[in-house]
């Protein structure tokens, strides 16, 4: 609801991007890489061909599920940093649901997706309960639970769920092909994945902007005391926010298992949870921008493998760029605020 001219906003955003670009160049200089070429290679690597774009999309799906999910707690001023663990739990539950079957079809897949959503939601609920009834800040409970989840998945993969004979990085026994999600033509992105991501966006949009629920959630985040006066049931709202986000994160985990790796891996989450948080912040907690930023980050991710292939650069540069981007957004916001204050004072 801010009545500032669109032009202004775009201007500020441009400023942020400019700053980010500048900082990136600053970082790449010592490595002796030609900055602009580097950036070009990155994007070409992510958008260069249809199949590349397909890969980018297949990264976009779980990333979007995470960041869109995160926007729900963000609306209530909640920092569900535990999303990483929730992705992992989703993947675990998904795998668990499929273990009894060595083959199958839509039925099993739907079951697996449901299980994944459940797993993520439950893991999120833990943070939620700790926050609402124990007043434990969700950041710390979330962090803790992330590591616990990581411990659990490693233990499962190298323990109870290990392949006959060999337990290894390569994770559990791969799923039967009949349980893989169907790809879009020759692209590596799947129909189901795209469907889920889009559904998540729509759901979040409707929930947050079209329903009383979203309004209540915002209100709770705005001022819990007043929320009590209005009898909005702050606690229930917060828990629901956690559950929803957890469920979406869980689905992200499921897509990792069913669409990308076709089995459970130690680092199944690809730390999309954390990246999702970055996206949420860069979108300054608004839904509108999130999917596009996700796409942008996905392109960076996919393009990054061209850095070692073509320029002999370390591909973690893409991560650097992402971080710098978000940081610049905050810096610009701060400067803006400060200038405003100066204005008042004068």
């Amino acid at each position, binding site marked *: *609801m801010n009545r500032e001219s669109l032009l202004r906003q775009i201007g500020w955003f441009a400023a942020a991007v400019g700053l980010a670009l500048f900082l990136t160049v600053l970082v790449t200089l010592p490595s002796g890489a030609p900055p602009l070429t580097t950036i070009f290679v990155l994007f070409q690597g992510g958008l260069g061909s249809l199949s590349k774009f397909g890969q980018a999309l297949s990264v976009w799906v779980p990333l979007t599920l995470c960041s869109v999910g995160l926007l729900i707690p963000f609306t209530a001023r909640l920092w569900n940093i535990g999303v990483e663990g929730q992705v992992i739990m989703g993947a675990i539950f998904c795998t668990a649901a499929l273990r009894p079957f060595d083959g199958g079809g839509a039925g099993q897949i739907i079951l697996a997706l449901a299980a994944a959503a459940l797993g993520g939601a439950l893991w999120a609920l833990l943070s939620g309960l700790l926050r609402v009834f124990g007043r434990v800040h969700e950041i710390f409970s979330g962090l803790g639970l992330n590591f616990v989840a990581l411990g659990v998945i490693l233990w499962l993969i190298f323990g109870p769920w290990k392949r006959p004979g060999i337990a290894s990085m390569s994770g559990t026994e791969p799923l039967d092909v009949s349980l893989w999600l169907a790809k879009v033509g020759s692209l590596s992105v799947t129909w189901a994945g795209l469907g889920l991501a889009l559904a998540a966006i729509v759901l979040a949009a409707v929930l947050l902007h079209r329903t*009383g629920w979203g*309004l209540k959630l915002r209100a709770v985040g*705005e*001022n819990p005391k*007043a929320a009590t*006066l209005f*009898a909005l049931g702050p606690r229930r709202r917060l828990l629901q926010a956690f559950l929803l986000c957890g469920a979406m994160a869980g689905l992200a985990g499921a897509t990792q298992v069913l669409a990308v790796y076709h089995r459970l891996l130690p680092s199944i989450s690809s730390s999309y949870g954390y990246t999702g948080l970055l996206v949420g912040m860069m979108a300054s907690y608004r839904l509108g921008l999130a999917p596009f930023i996700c796409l942008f980050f996905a392109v960076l991710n996919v393009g990054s493998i061209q850095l070692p292939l073509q320029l002999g650069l370390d591909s973690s540069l893409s991560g650097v760029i992402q971080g710098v981007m978000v940081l610049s957004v905050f810096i610009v916001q701060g400067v803006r605020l400060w200038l405003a204050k100066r204005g008042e004072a004068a």
Partner: protein
Amino acid sequence: MIVLSDIHKQYGRVRANDGISLTLEPGRIYALVGENGAGKSTLMRVLAGHTRPTSGSIEVNGERLSHLTPALARRHGVGMLYQDPLDFPAMPVWENFQLGAPRRTKRQVVDILGELSFRLDACFLPDEPVSSLTVGERQLLELLRLLDLGATTLILDEPTTGITPEQKQDLFNLLMTLAREENHTVVLVTHKLSEALEMADAIFVMRQGRLVCTLTPPYDEHELVSRMFGEAARGEVAPMPEVDETAAPRLDMRDVLFAGPKYSMGPLNFTARPGECIGLAGLDGSGQELFLRGLCGLDRMPGGKLVLNGREYGSNDFKILRRAGVQFVPADRLQLALFPALNLMEHITLAFPDRKEDRQKFYDEQCVERFNLRAHPDTHASELSGGNQQRLLLSLIPDDAALLLMEHPTRGLDAGSSRQVWNHLKERCANGATLIYFSPDLEEVLEHSHRVAVFYDRGLAAVVDRERATMETVGALMAGKPAAEVFGNRAKAAAEGGAR
């Protein structure tokens, strides 16, 4: 000698201080009085360098400054004691004493502290955390600290809220000696006229950010009071609605105990009839806040029973009471009752989910027509003036609310809007609602109550009915005079009859 000239302080829309000039001379005790929000604290904070005035100048010891900083103020011997003690609860006494002072070893600090507290026959254990002290002790410690820093101008912002009478007496004796013998300047910000009358060589009266007058002895209490609370607003005021004496009580409290975060009170026995307006009078922290918050279920009710419209409630669950028609409107609207970054429409939607469809219509009828809330429907609550905030809140209260609990209904409202608000509230009462409200503005209470419940020292001192409720009687009761003295014994009986 300190001269404040034409001090202005603006907080957003609020003019906390509006062109104040005054002179403080050494060796004298001043009292600064005024209703809540008059701007007393703000002015004092400016003087102590804790707030930069929007405009105006301060002349200290011949030095002319646009504003002071805490450090500067200290150098000029200005020290301020806060309404809520401004100290570090988690840290031990001696550190609280030392912080901000020139470097010293712990031993030195402990010695000085001991010596000072001996002089004021107080006693502090240096290593005890301040959180374990009473408010009074914390105030005293602050005072010692200021003296130790060589403060010659002492500002005490309502120092006597929540300290015992004898502590208070000691404090006043101390201030006397400081002023008379050591030639200190003392400024005493207070709500309690008795204190002002007893102590002050001159009384500054503030009202809505302005300095309305400076009184000097001999004091005329009536004048003081009328100056403080101003003339009643002009224009016709709706008459008090009739109360049907025969109707069954709307509210009946039986041996109710309330427990707030700070203190607890009770057992309380009190009844209210439909259509009744009951004003709560009392100095800050005398218990009226807890009374309201407890009644609506925001503070806990460890014991007793509430009977609402004949239904008995053993516990005061907020939701249940709310469904039973209990509505609470806090004084601090933005902090407690509104969502700063949500707009009016959204507030309406939140309050009346079922009227989501015709909310525009609702807005026009309710907010604009009835409450002439003149603001664009998508303004943020945070951008509303105090008056409009109150209008919004009132318009959000459903018409069938049976029991209205309000803190300072007209806080921050000008005379005109106050009248509107009151007429509206009385209309509700006429339609059978019961209103229990609290206001620091005594005149307001007296004008708009069938009965006045006076609180003193965290307890219900007396309930006075309209005829007997005058500035004198209620004022006296608020200041702690026993009911017996205020009205003869016969009246006392009646008064207590009120609180059955």
